[in-house]
């Protein structure tokens, strides 16, 4: 425990600083794009308060512009954030047993907050984890506000800025690949999407997800388990 208890003494500022450096600019890009797409600043900030999920928020911009149906927005959110179902499992014992603090910490369990919380030693007080979660969201909100204010002034006619979402997926996929337990997910996903495109161009994503879920049911991993 000697090793991990030294980590317990890391001040909040040291833990939240790396997240701030990512969240402020990423939030600013989101705020900028959202306002440029025609949203008022208050809506950009509100979306950080009620959703707080970077990739899903980037994704919603073109969908809101196109006036997409609630059902398709809901489905897209479900798909993009599905990985979050598996985050809470490793933090079950560490969160406060009940109360508003617990609810808020569940709400704020983003990729980055999850990865910081899971590196904290087991005896970290819940209050510290709570503050860390709240600070991380604060950076995200501040960044968005900054980007939205700039975006409301700027006149920009560059095409292709929304490709930032594809690049965000590329970053997340690279990190998932780094921590993979096998290469199967990629080996299945590529042909699944190609096959789905053949079946229906309109519904390609949903069909491909269905195919991947089927594959997950049928592909038996080797008994040698990796964490």
């Amino acid at each position: 425990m000697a090793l991990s208890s030294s980590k317990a003494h890391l001040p909040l500022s040291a833990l939240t600083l790396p997240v701030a450096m990512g969240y402020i600019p990423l939030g600013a890009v989101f705020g900028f794009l959202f306002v440029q797409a025609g949203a008022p600043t208050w809506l950009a900030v509100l979306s950080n308060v009620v959703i707080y999920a970077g990739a899903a928020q980037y994704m919603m911009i073109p969908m809101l512009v196109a006036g997409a149906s609630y059902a398709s927005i809901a489905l897209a959110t479900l798909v993009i954030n599905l990985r979050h179902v598996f985050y809470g499992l490793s933090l079950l014992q560490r969160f406060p047993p009940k109360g508003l603090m617990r609810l808020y910490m569940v709400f704020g369990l983003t990729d980055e907050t999850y990865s910081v919380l899971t590196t904290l030693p087991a005896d970290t007080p819940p209050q510290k984890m709570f503050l860390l979660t709240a600070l991380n969201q604060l950076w995200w909100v501040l960044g968005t506000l900054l980007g939205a204010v700039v975006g409301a002034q700027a006149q920009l006619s560059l095409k292709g800025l929304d490709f930032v979402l594809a690049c965000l997926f590329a970053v997340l996929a690279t990190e998932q690949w780094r921590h993979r337990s096998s290469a199967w997910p990629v080996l299945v996903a590529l042909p699944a999407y190609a096959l789905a495109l053949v079946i229906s161009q309109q519904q390609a994503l949903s069909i491909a997800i269905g195919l991947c879920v089927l594959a997950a049911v049928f592909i038996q991993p080797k008994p040698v388990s990796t964490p």
Partner: protein
Amino acid sequence: MNQSHALWALLIMGAITFGLRGLPFVAARWLQSHPLIERMGRFLPLAIMMLLLMHAMRGGSQGHSGLPWPELAAVALTMALQWRLKHPLLSLLAGTALYVWWINP
């Protein structure tokens, strides 16, 4: 952008995200006792991220004529930088900048 549509969409997205993040806290035993769920937990995140990536690339390539070279190059750059440097913001901005530079005449 229709503001009341956007507002409802935000609330729906918020509810779904909260539900997903909260599921293990109310159904941990169920999630942990099913080997199938565990298998999906290991298989699906990477598979779905690859699908989302391909889908977003396809969306980009439909915005211009010609082959999807800008999409492939921007994503390759993003992934190479992320793999080497582990700096999400840098990878993301470099990839987007290359893309925007490429498709704007």
